[in-house]
């Protein structure tokens, strides 16, 4: 099980980082989502991996799962969902007003106030 979880985290992180490096908003957002899934699973496993163990105190049970990472993951999931929504909206706004979905900024030189137009020319 450890191997499965560890490799899942590793593969998701690797894929996420690859997608983030694509520098176009859609792959980057998918990459960020993958990274947040990876980190959520990682946080979950930070309290040791157990199966069939309750997290809440109960009679007749002597093996427990650590409840704290589950609370942490819950918070992390909520925050990462919210942040992903924010980044989608901001990226959409950026795409609509700049006419391209590049993440990296064009060169800004003095005397060229309309930097987005040059970027448009280069990217198309």
């Amino acid at each position, binding site marked *: 099980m450890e191997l499965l979880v560890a490799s899942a985290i590793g593969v998701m992180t690797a894929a996420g980082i690859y997608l983030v490096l694509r520098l176009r908003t859609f792959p980057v957002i998918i990459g960020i989502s993958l990274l947040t899934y990876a980190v959520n699973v990682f*946080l979950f496993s930070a309290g040791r991996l157990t199966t069939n163990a309750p997290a809440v105190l109960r009679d007749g049970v002597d093996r427990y799962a650590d409840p704290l990472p589950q609370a942490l993951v819950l918070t992390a999931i909520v925050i990462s969902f919210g*942040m992903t929504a924010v980044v989608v909206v901001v990226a959409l*706004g950026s795409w609509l007003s700049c006419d391209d979905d590049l993440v990296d900024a064009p060169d800004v030189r003095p005397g060229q106030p309309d930097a987005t137009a040059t970027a448009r020319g280069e990217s198309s």
Partner: protein
Amino acid sequence: MSHWTVVPVLLPGMLAAIIVLAARHQPSLARILSVAGTIGLLALTIALFWRASDGSIDVYLLGDWAAPFGIVLVTDRLSTLMTLLTAALALPVLLYAIGSGWDLRGKHFHALFQFQVMGIMGAFLTGDVFNLFVFFEILLIASYGLMIHAGGGPRLRAGTQYVLYNLLGSTLFLFALGTLYAETGTLNMADLAQRVAAIDAGSSAGIRVAAVLLLLVFAVKAAVLPLHFWLPASYSEAPAPVAALFAIMTKVGAYCIIRIYTLIFPPDLAVTQGLFDTWLLPAALLSLAVGMIGVLGAGRIDRLVAFAAIGSMGMLMTALAIFTPQGIAAALYYAMHSTLATAVLFLLVDAVQVGRGRAGTDLQAGSPVSGGPLTAGMFFLAAIAMCGLPPLSGFIGKLLVLDAARGSDLAVISWAVILLTSLVAIVGFARAGSQVFWKSHQIAAKQADAFETEADEANISDGAPNPGPLMAVSIGMLLAMIVALTIFAGPVTTTVERTAAQLFDGEDYIATILGTEGKVIEYHGDDYGDADAATGGADQEEAAE
């Protein structure tokens, strides 16, 4: 347990909600509420600072749960100093936003501003690492909104980068926290300090990873060199008052490094040896160099200030990376100075931009800046402060850093880099100042020769409205704080030295937090009616750990 500790977090949070709900459509009401709240916050942080100035540590247990299980807020010298700095910065920045009309160019400026202040306050006050992450997210999500406030293509693009980069930073933060929790089983700072100290050097691999990951996260926030890419574009595209408020956000990173690496991973800890002299100090010196070279190379005045912010963070980090009480004291003094100097420069860039019409922020001669002598004079003062020329506080801060660096192994390199970059910064600012303020007048004179004088006069007054009185007042307030920091350098230095001494004596902090009485987790077994549930519950608690 004083309830005042939690008010700096609650007050802006409640106020932001009230502004969103009640004052959404009444800008003047939102302005009044926001300013009143910020003034109240300033008074409150002064009181808290005064309260902590005798060296006492106050702990606030949220929900009255005892420390390692519940979340705690802590006021000691360091956190009250930083909250005071935040409130002292927030007030003039808010006044500038109102005076320049920035707050009406988009919706919800005041609510986002208050949320941002809430997040910063919380990050400074919390005594729990995961809660630190949560407050980071609060201040970041507010900063996303503020960053793209008033919209526009370049700003949205820079905003996308900023959001994405910070999301990556947050992911890294969670990885660091997961590693830390897996190694120690706790996330309370005081408890962490005890448990990390108990780890023997043989099984230190995981905790080393956690320490390095955390340092990386805070270096992202503090814009230390290899991780500084997000700063120039974001800060130069952000609205001026927002960029000025962001001046404190890089200091949140510095604060976290100071807090975590004096308390949890102190410099004499065996498992994290070499983190500072091998990694952080060269990175800090490099970001100092790159920042100041960027000042020299910047093509736009807002970029110039953004690079100056990177440079000043490099200086702060250099003092920090020495990691002696003297170094931390110098870093704290420089943090106060650089927050104020960066903020005032960002506000002045906006004032210049307003005054220049079409030339905007380009670093070339254009129409003269109106409000001319006043704006130029204030820019001159702020540039002096930022470069570290006498007589302003930058000079004193730099002297303190140089003095602290004297004993370290890399003293020669540190001195050389600090002094050379100061020279580069002076050249860069002198060039910018002469382009923007002096050459513009020459061009105006030439134009006056070539064209009709009246037409030129009309052109100047047309594109160059004077900065409003409230704008001048708010910039003046920040400059007055810099001057006060210079005049009262003696008492301030004593205060930061005491702060550093308290930080290096972590026993008191740990004992106070873990010793504060509160509710503890007890298992009574009432629901099950089991006779010896109490003892069983205790066993189960141990098993759960």
